């Protein structure tokens, strides 16, 4: 389990001539495939040689900070922008160059982009009518879809007479009613308040299960991506930094950037000292899974998530320290521990009342399981 290395996002453009272990079944069911896609706006490279495969029926998230090229990637799949270089496949069909109305893809825009001059019913029916669905069929399908998104009885309203959450649902219904091959969502929950956003995250996931359509979801919110997506591509400066399941990304991030973007992590600089050993700078030698080391040598950085560190010395990897800060946050207590390798953050779950040292300056030994350790190239979040 520990040795499953996260698939590199960047595949070779040619999927032909498959070696034995390459899984042709996966390639066949890829709903969306980007091959070496680059998008330049004048001198800005918004998307940089990006390759990507998205499985049919999956919930896929593009995650990254503002300006990293998520929207541009989505817009190229939707047909609103054409790639400067590279190819985009929907199923087996190469679609780059096709306008959006010739692609079997629908979009939920961040601003919703509901037609203000049309009723909810006509908004949702818009796509069906364009495709020549007639009379009764339109009514039935629109009403079915409004029921799925929980908007029965609002058919006659205009968009401006709806709340933000309701507008969001209309936008979703308007896209889904066409039963596209792929649904694109650009920060669809960005305009909603926190409580509604949490609720919609679960609802969206439920709807995706119900309709079985491939969802590609753009967000800068790591929690949102992890809550909803089966697979996540973490983007940085127009490239995919790492692609994998939420667990893979969290447990075995491949770069300091990914480790820092998804949750909190402690990174300690060190030097490789053996096939499964790293000597921490200024500190002891620790054991790491050989798979995590993945043949690296020289300078690396070792990462441990705060909740994986114990305040008692019962695990194999140990380091002495002194508590300098502690904060009780309900389910856990957060400690800042000064060690020879720098300050580490530790989350200790409050399973028993009053457990854990509360005094500052308390001397302690931190320990963690080697299996919970990951390794990245360096401490720097190189924007490459």
């Amino acid at each position: 389990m520990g040795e499953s290395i996260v698939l590199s996002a960047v595949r070779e453009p040619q999927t032909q001539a498959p070696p034995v272990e390459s899984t042709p079944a996966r390639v066949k069911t890829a709903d969306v495939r980007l091959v070496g896609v680059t998008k330049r706006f004048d001198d800005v490279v918004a998307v940089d040689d990006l390759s990507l495969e998205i499985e049919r029926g999956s919930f896929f998230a593009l995650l990254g900070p503002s300006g990293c090229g998520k929207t541009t990637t989505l817009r190229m799949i939707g047909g609103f922008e054409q790639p400067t270089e590279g190819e985009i496949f929907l199923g087996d069909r190469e679609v780059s160059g096709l306008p959006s109305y010739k692609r079997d893809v629908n979009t939920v825009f961040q601003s919703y982009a509901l037609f203000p001059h049309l009723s909810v019913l006509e908004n949702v029916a818009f796509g069906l009518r364009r495709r020549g669905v007639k009379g009764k069929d339109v009514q039935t399908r629109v009403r079915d879809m409004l029921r799925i998104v929980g908007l029965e009885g609002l058919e006659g309203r205009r968009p401006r007479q709806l709340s933000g959450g309701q507008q969001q649902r209309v936008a979703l219904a308007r896209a889904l009613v066409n039963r596209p091959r792929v649904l694109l969502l650009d920060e669809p929950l960005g305009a909603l308040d926190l409580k509604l956003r949490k609720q919609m995250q679960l609802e969206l996931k439920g709807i995706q299960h119900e309709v079985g359509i491939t969802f590609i979801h753009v967000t800068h919110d790591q929690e949102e991506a992890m809550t909803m997506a089966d697979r996540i591509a973490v983007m940085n400066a127009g490239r995919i930094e790492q692609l994998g399941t939420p667990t893979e990304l969290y447990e075995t991030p491949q770069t300091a950037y990914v480790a820092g973007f998804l949750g909190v992590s402690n990174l300690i600089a060190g030097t490789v000292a053996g096939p499964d050993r790293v000597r921490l700078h200024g500190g002891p030698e620790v054991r790491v899974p050989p798979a995590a080391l993945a043949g690296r040598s020289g300078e690396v950085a070792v990462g441990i998530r705060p909740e994986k560190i114990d305040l008692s010395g019962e695990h194999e990897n140990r380091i002495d320290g002194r508590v300098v800060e502690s904060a009780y946050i309900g389910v856990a207590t957060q400690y800042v521990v000064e060690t020879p390798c720098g300050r580490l953050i530790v989350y200790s779950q409050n399973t028993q009342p009053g457990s854990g040292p509360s005094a500052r300056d308390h001397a302690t030994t931190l320990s963690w399981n080697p299996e919970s350790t990951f390794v990245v190239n360096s401490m720097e979040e190189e924007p490459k």
Partner: protein
Amino acid sequence: MSAIAVSAARRSQDLAAAWAFVRRHVLTVYAMLGFAYLMLPIGFVIAFSFNHPQGRFNYVWNGFTFDNWKHWDGVPGLRSALVLSIEIGLLASLLATALGTLIALALVRYRFRARGATNILIFLPLSTPEIVLGASLLTLFGNRQISNVIQLGFWTILIAHVMFCISFAVVTIKARLIGFDRHLEEAAMDLGANEWATFTKVTLPLIAPAILASMLLCFAVSVDDFVVTYFNAGPRVTFPVFVWNSARVGAPPQVNVIGSVIFIVAVTGMVANVLVQIRRQRSAATV
């Protein structure tokens, strides 16, 4: 002594009350005076449309009559002048708005080489004195080569009117397009509408108010124009030209009748518009 004090206090109270009254109503009085200043000439126009003038000049009140309204086209040439003005107005507003919509779309949506220059050029007819515009157009139409093809008359008036109306149309429609959410058109195409369907189903309905406003504005500007028209009308007589011609020899009260009708139509239109707006706001608020 106390009585004096009381009466003094009362007097100062009265003064304060009077001052408060003035302060409260000075704005109202001022507004009414301003309104009267604006309305007085119009009031005269309407009043004198019911006059029964003694001579050729309709300047002295002589007696009330409905005759002018009953025989509104009793003056030779008035009816044809009015018809010509309306024809030109309708055609010019239609053409100018159609062209103006396309120009506005190009200016707002696309970046092209002469975009900046076009933007300035569009404003030129608005900022050029009409007398210059009219004279230079006459120079153009008077040119031998051109006057061989097109003589001063209906078509030259129309061309001139379309020219200065385009500016108004572009300005009106551009304002609406700048506030237009481009994602709406992308959403339409996303849902399977091609360029034409997107234009007719989404863009056009959403800019329709601006198009209507542009037509009304162009019509008003065209019907009202005298200077440019006078230069380029040749033998044709529009309503403003007719009024000018007859004013020199004595304007008939029928001119006032037409003026009153134009005023009433305009005011009715405005009131209707305001009522529609109020109703819309109410219907939006009741949800």
